[in-house]
């Protein structure tokens, strides 16, 4: 394990790897600082740029973007009360009041340092837990994989807010899309109107269409963005060390909360920051300051939402199931480079997970430096006019889609999924379950068919394994609990 970690650090001797880290961090800050764009869209847009890169360089760049986008989300939350990402909402509760008090620089400093501490501690937890988890998962048979895929798909209930039925429909759409192309077991073409479909729906153009192009149409709806009022950043480097040493316990507690919540599939960085903020307020000696400009509030939210990044990577690396919409896209990015996340990753491509651990640690000081040194610049990024962002995103989408196969077919796929994604979002049908199902569909189908072949079509094979039963029970609970809760609330409301 430790030898492999050394391999992870040693890849940084290749100058392209640290360059990838810095580029990813810069882009992540930029994406995070622009309200409305987030890590999911950022990763989808960055994938086309990684086609010709070495897989290790690509992964480091993507992970750096993911982490930095969570760092950067706090900037607009603090300066203009418009969180760049959902996970930075809790940061704005104290960050913006601090800006109004003329302490914007101090608030940014605390948010950046807290983010770094959250990432560093949670990566340690990731390193300690992901490796044993992947070793345990090596014993999984086809039925356990079916259970695991269903647990992954059951995230749909958490991605779907208060509309589990719509999440279920989105899941069906994604699974149906995953079956298009040549059947991997019989070679029969399925739902393929032309030979272009034989390889299935190309993942990158689908991602670009659903996440990026549909967002462009929302930007068009929003019209030109008003210019924000620039804030003075005095006191950026004037936060005394004792402010941080006084929050030692808060950092540890928030990082643990963030990591654990990040591991739970579907929970994600925003829930982590809310929970951590609430716990910090209850444990604080000055709870009345929360919401009015508390340093502890900013630190609790930021260390937790960044710790959730490492947490979300744990199920992705160890089990091959995504813990958040962003990691669902990340799985797609890994697959494009021929890397299949999951327990075998640690034995077949150990340099990938261990480089991710190393890049999260080595990236921490880089991101803190970029954040602090470029604070004034990041503060201006939110002023980029929305029409310009729409044109840039569209240009990258179409050229990126074309570059994925050097043909026009992916461009048309991007266009169709962009418009379909816009309509589905308008009908409040979530898009994340579609990607989740598209990524996990093959794992579910191939293992289900393998299990059926082994058992000669006897479904008892699923009941003979305790592990499978546990996984199926978790999936069932995860699928049904939100619907049952909604039905219960509805019946209580109608009785009242």
């Amino acid at each position, binding site marked *: 394990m430790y030898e492999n970690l050394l391999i992870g650090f040693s890849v940084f001797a290749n100058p392209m790897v640290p360059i990838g880290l810095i580029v990813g961090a810069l882009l992540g800050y930029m994406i995070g600082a622009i309200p409305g764009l987030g890590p999911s869209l950022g990763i989808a847009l960055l994938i*086309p*740029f990684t*086609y*010709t*890169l070495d897989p290790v360089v690509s992964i480091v760049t993507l992970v750096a973007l993911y982490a930095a986008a969570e760092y950067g989300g706090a900037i607009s939350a603090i300066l203009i009360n418009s969180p760049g990402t959902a996970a930075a909402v809790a940061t704005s509760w104290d960050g913006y009041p601090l800006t109004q008090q003329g302490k914007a620089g101090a608030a940014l400093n605390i948010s950046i340092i807290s983010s770094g501490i959250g990432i560093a501690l949670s990566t340690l937890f990731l390193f300690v837990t992901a490796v044993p988890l992947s070793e345990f998962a090596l014993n999984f048979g086809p039925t356990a994989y079916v259970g695991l895929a269903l647990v992954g798909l059951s995230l749909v209930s958490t991605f779907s807010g208060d509309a589990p*039925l*719509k999440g*279920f*429909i989105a899941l*069906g*759409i994604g*699974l*149906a899309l995953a*079956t298009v192309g040549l059947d991997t*077991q*019989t070679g*029969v073409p*399925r739902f393929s109107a032309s030979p272009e479909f034989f390889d299935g729906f190309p993942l990158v153009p689908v991602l670009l269409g659903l996440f990026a*192009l549909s967002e*462009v*149409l929302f*930007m*068009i*709806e*929003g*019209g*030109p963005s008003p*210019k924000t009022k620039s804030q003075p950043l005095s006191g950026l480097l004037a936060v005394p060390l004792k402010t941080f040493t006084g929050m030692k316990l808060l950092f540890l507690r928030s990082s643990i909360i963030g990591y654990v919540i990040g591991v739970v599939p579907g929970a994600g960085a925003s829930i982590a920051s809310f929970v951590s903020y609430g716990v910090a307020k209850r444990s604080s000696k000055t709870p009345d300051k929360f919401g009015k400009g508390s340093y502890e509030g900013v630190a609790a939210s930021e260390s937790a939402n960044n710790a959730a990044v490492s947490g979300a990577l744990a199920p992705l690396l160890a089990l091959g199931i995504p813990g958040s919409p962003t990691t669902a896209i990340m799985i797609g990015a890994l697959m494009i480079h021929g890397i299949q996340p999951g327990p075998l990753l640690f034995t077949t491509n150990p340099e990938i997970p261990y480089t991710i651990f190393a890049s999260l640690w080595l990236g921490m000081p880089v991101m803190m430096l970029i954040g602090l040194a470029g604070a004034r610049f990041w503060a201006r990024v939110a002023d980029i*006019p*929305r*029409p*310009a962002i*729409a*044109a*840039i995103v*569209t*240009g*990258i989408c*179409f*050229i990126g889609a*074309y*570059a994925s196969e*050097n043909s*026009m077919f992916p461009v*048309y796929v*991007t*266009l169709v999924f*962009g*418009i379909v994604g816009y*309509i589905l979002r*308008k*009908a*409040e*049908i979530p898009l994340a379950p579609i990607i989740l199902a598209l990524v996990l569909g093959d794992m579910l189908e191939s293992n*289900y*068919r393998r299990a*059926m*072949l082994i058992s*000669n*079509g006897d479904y008892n094979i699923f009941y003979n394994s305790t592990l499978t039963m546990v996984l199926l029970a978790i999936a069932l609970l995860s699928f049904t609990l939100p619907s049952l809760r909604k039905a219960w609330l509805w019946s209580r409301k109608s009785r009242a």
Partner: protein
Amino acid sequence: MLKSSADATGMHEETSELRVPLVWLELGVGLVLLIAAAYYMRGAFALPQPMNPNSLGAGSFPVIIASGLAVGVLTLLIFSVVKIVKKSKTEMVDVRRPMAVVAAMLVLLGHAWLLETLGAAASTAAFGAMLMIAAGERRPIQLIAIPLALALGIYLVFSVALGVPFP
């Protein structure tokens, strides 16, 4: 309701808005999905049976998915119809600047259609400018400089730095 104005910076602010009851949108999307699910199920049943009687054929899994999807969509349609019949209070879906959204869709369509004919750089610059106009940008310098910089940036990054061949 259609209002239009330009602010001091030259940004064009069209404030028209289209309001559609969510339930009608759900009904429309649900009907389309139901037709798609039926078409998908018909395709799944048409797939060949496996040679090995103990294995599952190429169509077995899609049949399960189609059934689940059809049940989900039918449930959504039933809920929608009940809400419409009962005249229940429903959420409204706002489409702000609908004409601009339709124009943007046409620009995207044109961009995809002419990408190969015009070439990546020219189509990115031309349709980028049109998209910015649809988004409300009216400042001539921005409309010229940003699409040109975008086309140049994309050419330098994709073609020169990454070696990706352009259409």
